């Protein structure tokens, strides 16, 4: 398959030094030690589904690992619409497995136990932060109002429409503002954090246990994972394709700008596919103008290659 490696791959190359396939090995190398010092991406598990919450994490995995995922929450700017959604980012099981395998991510544990003392300190920190924010905002609001008044005064002066009287009145207003203005508490702006905030319910030291992936891998998910890893290694971007009757939608470039070229179906080498299923999926593929790929990992070894067959609808003319 002719495809170009996007620039994003250089990121991992620099760190790893080894090829894409060799990163899975847990050998202690220069690259590994360097990587372990990098802050890892947090994966949060809700009911077995891996989610990413931090905007920085979402950006990193897209730029460095080609993990696209799907945004499933309400968008902060306009929460009451479905056209564009916001955080969290839901990623595929295979994407989470790959990130964990490469040491790029860790599953975040939600520790509920917290001693009294640190909790009290956290509450105090939150309260003081809120107070500080309120005071700052009061100052800013006052500055803002003074600036507005000043602009009005300047405008009037430039127009030469005002006389001594109105100028005096304006200066009086300015001084009364200085003395008597208070920002009502209800007008204070407050942040509703999306990701887990700094002062929170999790202890100082979050547990990063890379090997603690709760999902047991059966044969089907193993097949899917191998196909995912291979296609990702070749530089394609992959997203879920349940709506198209397949396992993955394969994009030649970032899905934000490019259409998908393939619908990938993962089958094991020995699996028998009924002919009517082949016909159905081929028909679907031709309807949506995408090529259907049947992908099967060869059993030889853990790092075996994957065999691809494409379906093309043709006729006898």
């Amino acid at each position: 398959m002719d495809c170009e490696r996007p620039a994003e791959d250089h990121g991992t190359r620099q760190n790893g030094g080894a090829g894409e396939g060799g990163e899975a090995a847990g050998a202690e190398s220069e690259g590994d030690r360097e990587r372990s010092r990098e802050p890892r991406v947090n994966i949060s598990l809700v009911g077995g589904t891996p989610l990413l919450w931090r905007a920085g994490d979402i950006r990193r995995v897209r730029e460095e690992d080609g993990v696209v995922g799907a945004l499933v929450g309400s968008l902060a700017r306009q929460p009451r619409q479905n056209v564009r959604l916001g955080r969290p980012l839901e990623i595929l099981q295979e994407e989470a497995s790959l990130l964990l395998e490469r040491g790029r991510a860790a599953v975040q544990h939600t520790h509920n136990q917290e001693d009294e003392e640190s909790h009290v300190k956290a509450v105090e920190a939150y309260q003081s932060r809120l107070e500080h924010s309120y005071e700052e905002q009061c100052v800013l609001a006052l500055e803002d109002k003074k600036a507005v008044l000043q602009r009005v005064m300047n405008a009037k002066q430039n127009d030469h429409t005002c006389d001594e009287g109105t100028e005096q009145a304006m200066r009086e207003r300015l001084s009364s503002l200085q003395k008597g203005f208070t920002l009502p508490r209800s007008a204070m702006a407050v942040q509703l954090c999306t990701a887990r905030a700094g002062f929170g319910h999790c202890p100082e030291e979050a547990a990063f246990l890379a090997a603690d992936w709760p999902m047991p891998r059966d044969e089907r998910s193993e097949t899917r994972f191998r196909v995912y890893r291979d296609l990702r290694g070749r530089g394609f971007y992959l997203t879920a394709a349940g709506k198209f009757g397949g396992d993955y939608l394969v994009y030649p470039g970032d899905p934000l700008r490019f259409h998908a070229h393939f619908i990938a179906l993962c089958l094991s080498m020995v699996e028998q596919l009924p002919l009517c299923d082949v016909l159905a999926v081929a028909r679907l593929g031709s309807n949506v103008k995408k090529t259907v790929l049947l992908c099967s990992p060869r059993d030889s070894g853990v790092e075996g290659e994957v065999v691809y067959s494409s379906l093309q609808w043709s006729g006898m003319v």
Partner: protein
Amino acid sequence: MATKQAHAEAARAERSEELLSPSELFHARSRSHKIPVRGQKEFLPTGSEQQKTHLQKSLQEHWTLVAEERVERLGNLVNAEWIPEEKLVKLQSPAGKFWQTMGFSHCGKQCLLPEEALYLMECGNVQVFYQDLPLSIQEGYERFLSPETVTLHQYQVFGHLKRLGYVVNRFDPRQNKQLKRKRSHSPGSRSCEKQTSIPQEDTAVGPCEDVLTGEPHQTIQSKKEQDEPMDSGSHVDRAPERNWWTAASSQSRSMTGLPAALPWDFRLISFPDLGSSRAARTCLAAPDPELLPGALQVGECKMASWLTKLNLKEEKLSRRERERQRERDRYKRSVNDDREVRRCTNWAEYLELMKKRRRQRCKERPAHLWEKDVTPLSQPGLCTSHRELLEEVSIIQSSHLLEEASKLPQLDQWRIIFNVYQPDTVADFKKSHPGNPYTRMCVCSFDGPVPDLRVMKQLSFQSADIPVTFAVVDHGDISFYCFKEFKLPSDFY
């Protein structure tokens, strides 16, 4: 140890990354509220500069939107507290506009279900506290969503529908059973409800002989009828009580509370004789007061007075009408002239007679068809309508979706989770009287099994008259499917 510290520092740095400074908070009020429109996609990546800049621009817009944090005026936020023991969120300040369609009152306090609270958190209307600290959206997802409350997939469907404007609340399977009992009006089911009262009335009323079967009848007759003065002639034949419907249905009392199928026992339906010389003495029994509206009371009907009012005037036919009459008399026989028909005393016997006659008509049956092991299912002339013929030759009986659905055991994997009401009813929506929902939701995923007939029967039964929609969640994309019952037409005109 050094790496551990570095970890902690990095983690702390990361954590405070997403907290906005007071000046950022203050200036958030002047943020744009518009969402940039996504342009057309391209087919092939060519590596050209133009493509690269387009991609960078799209990505930059994307990151700006994704990274934006929610900032709200403190006065606009409703404060609430998460109670994990009850899996509820209790409001601490008065509810806003959302109270019209969401939430409920519990022990004097305004409460929200976890999915409602989480949705309102995402909209920036509610700030939920737990142990005096505000919960982030992430913590909301992790704490509120569970198999005991609402799973992540179910919450995604909930949020999707709410964002479109629908009113969505939780489905309670217990509510429906009550509705069923109130709805049924047919006499059969009413007698089921009156089961306890029947034995009392029986003792008050003496048994009445049934002329046909000679068995004592169970009557649900009021005492008033007995007190009616009898005719002077004690030879008045009392027509047997017309309560073949109640007797039959009270025998087939079903425990499910559903209106039982009414098997009419044709042996008990008799024809009152109003035409013969004995007619003057017949007396039609009073109808069952259950069948009459309100407090209407109709007594027995003595035929004697009515018969005197029949056939008083001689009919004068025109010449043409007389001719037509002659034609009719020549070729048509009155049904009652037939002695065999006169011998029939009820519908069942009459139908039997007709059937017998039809069979006799088709006595000649070809040997090669009828003498073998496999014989035809029907004969020409035996059936009078297409529907009858199709019924004769049908091997598989058609059924309907709710047949025997009540006998199926409860399901564990499939359950109806939400009621969905249309968006245009929002203005008049009342939580106390929501009315009938537009549809009910059951959430599943492409990884799971397709609902089979058993599942559909059970869910349709649970849902009563409202159609059930299946919401299939696949990695953030939601597709809706529903199944509609369809009956093949069996009669042709």
